[in-house]
């Protein structure tokens, strides 16, 4: 059993690394790379959190009474 802290840290690190690589190969001017990283990270991490929330909510929303 591992803690939520470790899981979250691993998720954030992975998203950060992927968004950094995507920003570096996006062909943008170097001055726009930080913005690309932030946008990429936000979309990826936000998407994963949203998906997790939906997966958790589905059984509650469609619970048969």
């Amino acid at each position, binding site marked *: *059993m591992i803690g939520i802290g470790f*899981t979250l840290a691993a998720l954030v690190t992975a998203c950060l690394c992927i968004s*950094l690589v995507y920003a570096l190969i996006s062909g943008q001017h*170097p001055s726009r790379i930080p913005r690309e990283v932030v946008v990429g990270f936000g979309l990826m991490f936000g998407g994963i959190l949203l998906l997790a929330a939906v997966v958790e909510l589905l059984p509650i929303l469609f619970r048969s009474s």
Partner: protein
Amino acid sequence: MTELGISLSGVLFPGLGHMLLGLRRRGMALFLVLTAMFLVGVTLHPDADRGGGFYAKYKKNVFHTYEDYTAPFQQTDRGRDLEGPIDTIWRLVFIYLYPFFVGLVNYLAGFLWQGSHYVDALLPYRRAEIPVAVKDIGDCFALLAGLLNLLVMLDAYDLAVNRRTLAAMPKGAQAS
């Protein structure tokens, strides 16, 4: 050097193609990020008392370190009897092609790193007691580093082809 050669130089280590194209800082950044990612992955799934950690996950790898005779049936060589064509493709990709995806230098460095005592100092677990979830997270990191290096190699190819096309254009036609 040809475009394909520049692209395939990423097989040695990530970012080499960009460095050869003169994008040294970008290449160095890609190298650092992907190497760190791979080493974090290998650190989270190091060699245990027997077997070979991440390097044994896909059975016989280039170092032939797989020795885990207590593994479930489907993870042993006897499991080949149950293997279909798609399984065979995946096995070949992850055993024989993966070192080239992730960069041969990185692959070798990771192998030496996971056997060192620095890993024991970094990990909060003893090697034989690492939870499966942590090992899986480590595998994800290491595999992701390999797949991202494929994208980096494609980008280097793209940049090299674009440069040749721009150089071949007559002067003044590049802006249109």
